[in-house]
């Protein structure tokens, strides 16, 4: 069978579905497991139609217990499977936290490399959709703090397709964060693996300010770059894609060129990825910086009720305000 290289226009959700479909087709050791992923196709329909095509052994509806979903994936990995676990919503990952950080992340190290944990954990994350409590969180920093895990966040259909396949193919465990507010965003998808999931992408080139982000805020950052251009400021927008490890060579090259740095994410500020990126780039590029780097982030609050979330989430204006700060305006 010749590989399908046709370009299609897909939503981000459909692109993940296509990537899962391809992974299930290519490797019989790939199994999906999670709550409601079968007949329903997941609450966001990301796994639509996969049960019908691959059957209940490959697409496993599980009882409602996150620790068990991850723990069962560990056992399957011990036996040589490549499990893809779905956590239904960001805020539901905490009951599975121990299995992720104490088992999934550490078993390769603990067994001196004898046991591999090629587990992908899919997590719809982020806010802006007017959801109930526990349905809009950005828990990625907890996992970037844990050695042994790889953490990626996708922002567009092409990456969604390419990186789910790379994540599943990886012999390391990968936390795969899906921006649920962008599930319906459409884009062109070529069925290829694309750039390595470790690489950051320059989504808009610029010369005055480096604006770093990932996941749901990438389109907002791009809008900010367009708005800033109207005011004569040239913004280089970088989509991190990989939150652990971070592609520092790409970021360093950009900061050395622009001399100014803004990092934006929905997650709370304290202990967030923005702080880590800024600290690292300050260490490596201090002499190139024209001004103190700035974070534009969610506040240090529990995720607020839906009618307040627009105040918590960084938007175009707050990002532009951050750009003004590093520009000294």
């Amino acid at each position, binding site marked *: 069978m010749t590989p399908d290289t046709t370009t299609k226009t897909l939503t981000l959700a459909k692109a993940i579905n296509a990537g899962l479909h391809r992974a299930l087709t290519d490797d019989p050791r790939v*199994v999906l497991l999670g709550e409601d992923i079968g007949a329903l196709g997941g609450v966001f329909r990301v796994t639509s139609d996969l049960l019908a095509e691959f059957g209940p*052994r490959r697409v496993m509806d*599980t*009882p409602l*217990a996150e*620790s*068990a979903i*991850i*723990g*069962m*994936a*560990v*056992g*399957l*990995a*011990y*036996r*040589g*499977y490549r*499990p893809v676990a779905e956590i239904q919503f960001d805020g539901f990952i905490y*009951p599975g936290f*121990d*299995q992720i950080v*104490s*088992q999934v992340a*550490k*078993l*390769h*190290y*603990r*067994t*001196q*490399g*004898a*046991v*591999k944990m*090629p587990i992908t954990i899919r997590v719809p994350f982020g806010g802006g959709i007017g959801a109930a409590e526990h349905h809009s969180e950005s828990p990625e920093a907890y996992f970037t703090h844990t*050695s*042994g895990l*790889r953490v990626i966040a996708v922002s567009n259909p092409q990456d969604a397709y390419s990186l789910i396949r790379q994540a599943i193919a*990886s*012999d*390391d465990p990968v936390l795969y964060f899906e921006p649920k507010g962008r599930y319906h965003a459409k884009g062109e998808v070529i069925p290829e693996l694309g750039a390595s999931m*470790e690489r950051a992408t320059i989504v808009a080139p610029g010369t005055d300010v480096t604006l770093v982000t990932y996941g749901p805020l990438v389109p907002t950052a791009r809008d900010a770059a367009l708005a800033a251009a109207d005011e004569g400021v040239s913004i280089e927008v970088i989509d991190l894609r990989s939150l*652990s*490890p*971070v*592609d*520092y060579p790409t970021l360093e090259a950009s900061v050395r060129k622009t001399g100014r740095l803004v990092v934006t994410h929905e997650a709370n500020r304290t202990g967030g990825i923005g702080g880590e990126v800024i600290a690292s780039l300050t260490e490596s590029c201090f002499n190139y910086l024209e001004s103190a780097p700035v974070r534009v982030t969610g506040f240090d609050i529990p995720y607020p009720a839906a009618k307040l979330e627009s105040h918590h989430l960084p938007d175009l204006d707050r990002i532009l305000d951050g750009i003004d700060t590093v520009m000294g305006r």
Partner: protein
Amino acid sequence: MVESSPEFVQLITPEGERISNPELDPWVADVTDAQLTAWYEDMVVVRRIDTEATALQRQGELGLWPPLLGQEAAQVGSSRATRDDDFIFPSYRENAVAYVRGVPFADIVRVWRGNAQSGWDPYKHQLAAPNIIIGAQTLHAVGWGVGAKYDGVDSVAVTYFGDGATSEGDVNEAMVFAASFQAPVVFFCQNNHWAISEPVGLQAVQSIADRAPGFGIPSLRVDGNDVLAVVAATRLALDRARRGDGPTFIEAVTYRMGPHTTADDPTRYRDKAELEAWKLRDPILRLQRLLDSLGLLTPELEARTQAKADEVAAELRAGCINMPDPEPLTVFDNVYATPNATLEKERDQYAAYLSSFDSSNTTSNGGRS
């Protein structure tokens, strides 16, 4: 506080008398005299490993040791019942299981010497890395069992945990999942009566084995100090799993006669009389009495068994003491299966830092050395 109820199935009384049990007898009808004496040897040897490792800890050669004193029959009987292709997911006290699975003696203490987080290759011995997060491994057994079922083999996952772990969500979630997927899993609970200082009554107001049927999992409560009963119960459970009848839960009622670990002081929390009562139910003593009644406890057997125990202890001690410290830069090894740029940079920086000491040693006169 409700004590765990004494009712359990038994094939050898504490006095060493073989009694019949219609449910369990068929599972050990084929047991030979040679097997009985081999299990006796196993139990004597692992008790000696315990004594030697405790001594090594007291001498500063091990950072810590979790003794299994009193639990020899539960561990030897259950693991001797398994097949080589079954996969065992232990907790951290299953040193007799590691012995039965052929783990080199020094590797049994490697973790406790602080040389590695796990002493053996899990695939070489079909024995997972020890787990200190109590109960977490029960879920791994369910996943492995489901995988074995998908692969069309009749291998079984066996998981060990204590009475304390049965309070954890993971053990309960494992039972839900095992029942839902009819996973070939044997849940082997060693109820040794104490979770560090907490009595089993704080974990369970009725017998632990009674819980499993509520999950749809048949259970057995067996005298964990009776090696024959443990073998029979485990064989029964393994057979159910191999035939596609799903999980079984075994509660082996035993007693941790020593401390939780060498850092623990059980005299602070438990009654001496309780320990004395359990000493009368010693698993090795009762098998010795049975062998004696069968005319098998010959001076030759005793001498051979002691010689084996001495040999293993000497090998364990030599292996432990001569174990080289790991090389500094191996601290970075195997965090990831594929290179990680951030970590590689940390390794390079630390390597450069370490080598700066080497150069000061070799190039300066009177440098820091």
